[in-house]
C-alpha cells in the first residue's frame, strides 16, 4: 500500500511518502511531481519516515524531481530509516540529496 501527500507553500514543497513506493505506484507520484515547476521552488522535502520500500522506479522519481527543478533547488530527505538509507548509499543517491 502506498500513499503520498504533496503540499506547496512559499517556494517550499513537502512530500510525505508512506508504504511501498514500487513500480506500480511510482508513475502516480511521478505524474504529480511533474506538475512542479522550477525557478520558484527552492526546497523539496521528502518526508520518508513511513516509507517502507523504495527501489528502481521510486529512486527515479526522486532523480526526476531533481532534474526537473534544476540545480538551484535543494532536495531533502527527512527521517530516513535504515533500509531506505542503505538504498540511497548503495546507489549513490545520497550524493545529491540532503539527508536530515
Amino acid at each position, binding site marked *: 500500500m502506498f500513499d503520498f501527500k504533496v503540499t506547496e507553500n512559499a517556494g517550499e514543497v513537502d512530500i510525505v511518502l508512506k508504504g511501498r513506493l*514500487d*513500480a*506500480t505506484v511510482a*508513475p502516480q507520484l511521478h505524474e504529480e511531481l511533474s506538475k512542479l515547476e522550477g525557478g520558484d521552488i527552492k526546497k523539496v522535502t521528502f518526508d520518508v519516515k513511513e516509507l517502507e520500500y523504495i*527501489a*528502481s*522506479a521510486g*529512486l*527515479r522519481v526522486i*532523480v526526476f524531481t531533481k*532534474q526537473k527543478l534544476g540545480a538551484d533547488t535543494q532536495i531533502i530527505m527527512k527521517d530516513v530509516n535504515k533500509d531506505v538509507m*542503505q*538504498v540511497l*548509499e*548503495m*546507489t*549513490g543517491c545520497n*550524493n*545529491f540529496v540532503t539527508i536530515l
Partner: protein
Amino acid sequence: MMRIDECPTHELNGIKYRCGRVQPFGASIVGNSGINFSVFSKDATYCELVLFHHGMKEPFIRIPFPEEFRIGNVFSMIVYGLDIEELEYGYCMDGPYDPEHGYRFDREKILLDPYAKLVSGRNVWGEEPDWDDPFQHRGCVILEDYDWEGDKPLEIPMNDLVIYETHVRSFTKDESSGVKYKGTFAGLLEKIPYLKELGINCIELLPIFEFDEFENSRVVDGERLYNYWGYSTVCFYAPKAGYAASAPLGLAADELKNLIKQLHKAGIEVMLDVVFNHTAEGNEQGPYISYRGIDNKTYYLLTPDGYYYNFSGCGNTMNCNNAIVRNCILDALRYWVSDYHIDGFRFDLAAILSRDENGAPMTSPPLLESLAHDAVLGKCKLIAEAWDAGGLYQVGSFPSWGRWAEWNGKYRDCLRRFIKSSAECGPELIWRLKGSPDLYGNRCAEASINFITCHDGFTMFDLVSYNEKHNMANGEDNNDGSNDNDSWNCGVEGETDDKEILSLRHRQVKNAAGILLLSRGIPMILSGDEFANTQYGNNNAYCQDNVISWLDWNRLKKNKDIFEFFRKMIAFRAEHPVLRRSDFYSGENSSGYPELSFHGARPWEFDENSPFLAFGFMYAEPAVDYGTVEDAFIYCAVNAYWESVSFELPVIPDGMEWETVAYTGDDKAKYDKAAGNSVTLMARSLMLLLGHKRKSTRKGGKKNV
C-alpha cells in the same frame, strides 16, 4: 499522441500483448507500459515467453509467440501492464533434438535471454539456491535511464595508465577492509580515497558479468569452494548480482553505475576482464542455461559429430566468428561502454576469438577486426590475453590492427627470473625495459601490458616467500596451478619471523615494483601487492572465498614501507613522461644524450648481450622535448647480485646534480656528492636517482616526488 503500436492486439489470461519489434534484442521498455521482448533462434520451431513473479517457482503466464510474431529468425512481442520490479522472464523453445548434428532443443527447459540486462537467482553471494527450481538464472528488466550527471569514459591516454587489477569481492570482503558494504560494488566505492592515494588511474575488475558461484562448487575439508573468480559467464549483459549489496532490490545495475561514476570523478578508469571464449553451460553434461537451448549450433564450436570443442579448457568454446555470435559480443561491449561508461576491456583467452568455425586460427579474424574498428568502442582500450588453452600462443603476434594491447607474459617471466639472480635473463630484460620492441616493434610500447603478478599465480609477496605452490586447499591434490612460478622464498618457505629474510623479501618486492614502474609499456599491479598481501602460497585461488583470497588490510599498516614505495614510484612515473613514451625511441634527444641508455658498474661500459646481474639504465628527459618544468636525468641502478655493488654514475651537464629519490636497500645509503660520483648498493637492491639542476641554480619548479 498515442501511437497505434501502443495498443495491444492479443490477450491471454488478462495479459495483453501484440507483435513486437525485432530490434533491439532483449527486453526493453517501450511507451508507458509496454515491454518489448525479442530473441533470436535460427533453428527453433516454437518459442514461448515465460513470465514469473519474482522468486516464484511457477510462471504466472506462458505466452506462445504466434507465427506472425516471427520475422526471419527473430521472435518478438510487446507485453503490457507488467511490474518490472517484480518481473522475471525466460523463454521455452522447441526444435530438433539431435546432438550428433548439433541440435539440443528441449521444450521443457526455461532459458535465460542471452541479452538479459539483469539476472536474478544468485542475488546474494553464496546463498544456497533452490536446486529444485527449474529456472535458475532468470532474466529481469531494468530501467535504462541512469542519471550520469555528465560523466563519460575518461579516455586517459593509454600510455599514461597504471592499471590495478582486483576482484570485487576479494578487495573488501575481509573485516579488515573497514568498509560498510563488504565484498560489493558499494564496498569498493568506499575505497576510492585509498586508490587515489596510491595513485593508480585505472582499475581492472575480474569478471563482473553474471556468473554462478555455485558452478562446480564443492566442499573440501569442511570448506565450501566456489567458482570464485567467475571466469564462466552466464550472461554477457548483466552485472554479477551477487557483487551488489542492493541486488535483492534489483538495483545491481544502479550500484555498479554509481561506482563507475564515482571512480571517474576520482580520475580512475574502469576496465573489465571479459570472458567471451566460453560460457557456464560446460560440455555435453552441462546444464541448460541459455545458449544451448536457444541455438546450440550457432553459439558453440562443435565437432563434426556434435560434441563441444574445448579450446577454453572449460568444456565448450563460443563460436565467436559466427556472424550472430559476433554481433552478440559486439552488442554487449557497446552496451557496457555506452550504458556503463566502461573505459576498456581485457579479453580472457583472447586467442580463441581468432579461431574460425572449425577451430582453426585465422589471420584476419572478423570479430577482432570488428572490435578494432567499431564506432562505439572507438576510444576504449582493448587488451588481449593472447593465448588459449588449445595451445594457440599469440603474444607479440595477436591480430591487432594497431588497436589491441596484450598482457605481456614474457615481461612477467623475464623480470621474475632476473630479480632472483638469473643473469642469463639480463639481456632480455633490456628489451622488456624498452617496452618490448622485439615483440611490438611494428606497433608501440603501449601494446605491452607489463606485469609481474596478476590474479592467476602468486601474489608479489608470495613470489618472494614460496618456492612451491601450496594449493591443497583447492582439493585437487596440489595438481592445479602452474608449476613454473619463477619464485624464490628468500631462504625459508612461507611465513617467518626471521628479520633478515623478511627484510630481503621487502627489498625484492620493491625491486620488482621499481623496475616495473620504470619500464616503458603499461604497468599493471595486482591489488594488495602494494602492501605485501599473501595467499599463503596458493597460486590458483580460483575457488577460495575466504582469507586466502580476501585482501588482508592489516598488512597495509604492517608493510607501510612497501605501500609508500609503490605510491612514490607511481607518482614518479606520473611526473616523468619520458618513462611513458610509447614509440620505443632511445636515440639522442635534445639533451645531447641517448634518451634511454644502459650502463654497467661504470657508465657507458656495458655489454647488454652477455649475462649480467648488476646494471644501470638512464632516461634523459629534456624539458624542451617533454614540456616538463626542468631538464631531468633519471638513473636507476639495479643490483640483483647477492653482494653489494658500486655504480659510478654517468656524468650529467654542468649545473646539474644527482639526488637519490628511492632506495630499496636497508642500509639507508644515498648519493653523497662529497663521497664521489658513485653509489654503492647492498645485495639485491635498487636505487633511483634524479639528475636535475643544483638547488642553488634553480629558478623554482616542481619538486619531483
